[in-house]
């Protein structure tokens, strides 16, 4: 143990020296890209992968000759899953390191904590994770799914293809599941689902004893109507949840669970044999059968040095976001944030599922929606997908507060929450 620690210490010392060395050598002719993902603490489990994915993308771009004739340089900071620290680190990246753009954040609360910093210092943030919507900010580009690009299509699929009539909305107790479930509840009621056919359940972060809740779900599902679970359970709590489902013998054929936060990475810690047929809704699966995806997976596994390493949806979001930024900077001919914000709307780049994604005026992107079933090898098999691309909707059409709001950052409107009923900019939201 001590030996290993010593090696570790030596290795980190060496890498620091190397980083400083390369910094001084390239200081004049590089464009800096900030990476703001937690590398320690609870969120490290998900965010470390995204840091590595960004390093790979930057590396690839440099091999192609960089950007505007300059090499790109990654500046990695560790906000340590500590929300206020996200804001501090973001400030450090923008003011101290003078980065041209930042790729980062995972949880909604970390994004909310850095928003004022990006607004104040006028820099760019690319946010790669599916989130609850109800936001559109001038300096932020949302490359993950909005609820209408994930939750609503998943519910439609269950209703139409599985004939589900009774719904369990289970989630971790924080802003993303609460808002998503609020939207879903309104949507289900609009579709004629009765109040008593919807069960909503929240659990604390990292909840590990699922016996009661799984038994409740099983009892709720034995009322004679087809039942499904819509899960917004986050992170670590998923493994014990799925283990309990498997052990209590709840099969996907009887009560399917569709998850919005479970991807290939999360399944890596699970024996998936008892879970075959449970669903997930994303905009990308590693199993997508396209040449771009095969190439991406091959590069990723070579970069990380592990041929079993999986890819996932937020990685694809970074892939799309990074390429959009490159294209916008090339179009604008500068990395100046104002110029890039104007140039990026309408930019369209290939995604990994065989189509093109475009940046919309509301700073959300177009994506296909895929529904996949868990397979025994821990991958998803696509069983359904939208026929075309779905435009990310910043403000939900199913919530009374926000159904009249739209976002459009092009001149002359330049507004994140334009109220079409009153014809004025302003109302709900961050601006």
């Amino acid at each position, binding site marked *: *143990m*001590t030996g290993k*620690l010593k090696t*570790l210490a030596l290795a980190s010392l060496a890498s620091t020296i190397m980083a400083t060395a390369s910094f001084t050598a390239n200081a004049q002719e590089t464009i800096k890209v900030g990476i703001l993902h937690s*590398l*320690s603490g*609870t969120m*490290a*489990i*998900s965010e*470390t*992968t995204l840091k590595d994915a960004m390093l790979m993308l930057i590396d690839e771009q440099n091999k192609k000759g960089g950007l505007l004739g300059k090499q790109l340089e990654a500046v990695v900071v560790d906000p340590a899953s500590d929300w206020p620290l996200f804001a501090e680190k973001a400030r450090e990246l923008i003011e101290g390191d003078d980065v041209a753009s930042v790729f980062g954040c995972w949880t909604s609360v970390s994004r909310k904590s850095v928003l004022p910093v990006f607004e104040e210092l006028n820099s760019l943030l690319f946010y790669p994770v599916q989130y609850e919507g109800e936001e559109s900010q001038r300096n932020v580009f949302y490359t993950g799914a909005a609820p209408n690009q994930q939750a609503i299509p998943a519910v439609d699929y269950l209703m139409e*293809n*599985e004939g589900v009539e009774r719904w369990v909305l289970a989630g971790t*107790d924080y802003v993303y599941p609460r808002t998503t479930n609020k939207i879903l509840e309104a949507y289900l009621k609009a579709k004629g689902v009765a109040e008593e056919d919807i069960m909503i*359940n*929240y*659990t*604390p972060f*990292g*909840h*590990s*004893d699922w*016996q*009661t*809740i799984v*038994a*409740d779900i*099983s*009892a709720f599902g*034995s*009322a*004679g109507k087809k039942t499904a679970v819509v899960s917004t359970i986050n992170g*670590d709590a998923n*493994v*014990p949840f799925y*283990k*309990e489902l*498997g*052990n*209590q*013998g709840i099969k*996907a*054929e009887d009560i*399917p669970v569709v998850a919005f936060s479970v991807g290939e*990475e*999360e399944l*890596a*810690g*699970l*024996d998936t044999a*008892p879970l*075959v*047929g449970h*669903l997930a809704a994303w905009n990308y699966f590693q199993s997508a059968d396209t040449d771009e995806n095969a190439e991406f997976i091959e590069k990723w596994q070579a970069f990380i040095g592990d041929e079993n390493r999986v890819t996932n949806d937020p990685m694809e979001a970074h892939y799309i976001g990074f390429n959009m930024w490159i294209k916008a900077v090339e179009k604008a001919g500068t990395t100046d944030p104002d110029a890039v914000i104007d140039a990026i709307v309408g930019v369209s780049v290939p995604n990994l599922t065989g189509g093109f994604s475009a940046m919309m005026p509301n700073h959300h992107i177009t994506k296909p929606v895929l529904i996949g*079933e868990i*397979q025994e*090898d821990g991958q998803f*098999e696509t*069983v359904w997908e939208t026929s075309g691309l779905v435009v990310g909707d910043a403000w939900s059409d199913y919530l009374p507060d926000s159904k009249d709001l739209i976002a459009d950052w092009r001149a002359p409107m330049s507004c994140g929450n334009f109220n079409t009923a009153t014809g004025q900019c302003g109302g709900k939201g961050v601006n």
Partner: protein
Amino acid sequence: MYRKSILALLTIWCLSLFAPVANAQDADLQAIIQKFATSKNFNQTKAIVTELAETGDASVAGVLNALSDGSVYFRKSDNQVFVVPGSGKTLELFDPLTGEAAGEAGKRDLKKVKVNNALRRSIRDAIGGLTLASENPSVRLTAANTLAANPDVEALPAIEAALERETDDTVAKRLRQAQASAILISDRSLEDKTNAVNVMTALGNREALAFLTRFEAQADGELKTLAARAITKIEKNLKLWGMGQNVWYGVSLGSVLLLAAIGLAITFGVMGVINMAHGEMVMLGAYTTYLVQEIIRNSMPELMDWSLLIALPLAFMVSALVGLVLERGVIRFLYGRPLETLLATWGVSLILQQAVRTLFGPSNQEVSNPSWMSGAFELGQITITWNRLYILIFALCVFAVLLWAFNKTSLGLQMRAVTQNRRMASAMGIRTPWVDALTFMLGSGIAGIAGVALSQIDNVSPNLGQSYIIDSFMVVVFGGVGNLWGTLVGALSLGVFNKFLEPYAGAVLGKILVLVFIILFIQKKPRGLFALKGRAIET
């Protein structure tokens, strides 16, 4: 549609008892099976499944099962359909009907026939009737379950025939349920139906309740009142079982708390060391289990069922060694300075977490359940999962061994002597520093074996320990510092308390209420449930 096919299958199966169906149809069956290769979507595949089931030939059950498992492929070059059970780069092919080996092919040359839940469901329904005569009780159980879930008047004679032959109790019970629900929707006599309602009442499960509720809505006269009475009876019964279920869940949660806390009961309870790195000892135990399973998976897969038993002593040693280093390297300089100990061990916990994250990566590692720990069994209306039951037994065993070691061994005697009066013990010739080190090692080692058990129900990730540290302190403080019995009673009562709150207050509020309860309790009884009398470590 399925009813028809089930009926067809049942008829054919009955016929086949008397005159085995000749294999003349094989060519036709092959032709239908080959259509899987050209199926464009799930609906087409479903139509082929129905077509196969309607032939009523029992030999199609094999290929349908394989399809449901996702192991039916076709060769891209000639659209030939095969069953391919394995995985890897080159795959062995088998004939879908006869099951004979049919050569090999590379993975890239084959394409899978896609299945989804709806398709799996229709396959299950289609082969339900076929397999009622199977040799294997678990296959018969699936068939009986299908029939119980989809009551079918036309299947009644076949169910009754099967019921007469049935030797397995569980299957017979499900068949009786299928029979009763089929009778209720048939046009049999009032007496038969009354009997059927009574059978359903005796079964008393949720399915019976749901069926009777639907039945009651459309029944009239005597049957309606009978059904209504049966419903109240079942509901009352289920409520009682629900209480029993809460107790079981509570005890099971308590056993997890006990496992997590029992090592801390020694280091914190007996020695008085506030060890914030306790959770990380648990995590190290879980990672040891992961490593053991990795080695077994790669070199001797036949030992997989023994992996946990092999991991136990190793996990104990790993955590105990780390504990020893921690005690000798850090804690012994800080005895009697709780604040510094707290900060130092918290720092150590962060170092351990980050070290594991660097070595194994931040993502969850897969630790699988051995076969004897998977699944569940039913006790009345309660579902008890095997892994929870084994963890409860294991926690109690660990507790018993520890109690024995404390009260009956000379090391235990020395530990108690040192914690009660250090100077006197030292004067009697006990090497107190070594006893300290050994006690800390024991506590850490116990945390390590707790990690082996927790790897079965929770994620194995660098954060594993963090989620247990607060709960562990809570249990030890509530139970009474320095008393192992206190830890046992504290863990079990907190578990049961939590599980009785959860259905009413929800998981989030339930947890808060438990914490509030403990705060109030500690105000009233600062030394916990079982206060230790006499001098504690500070003397």
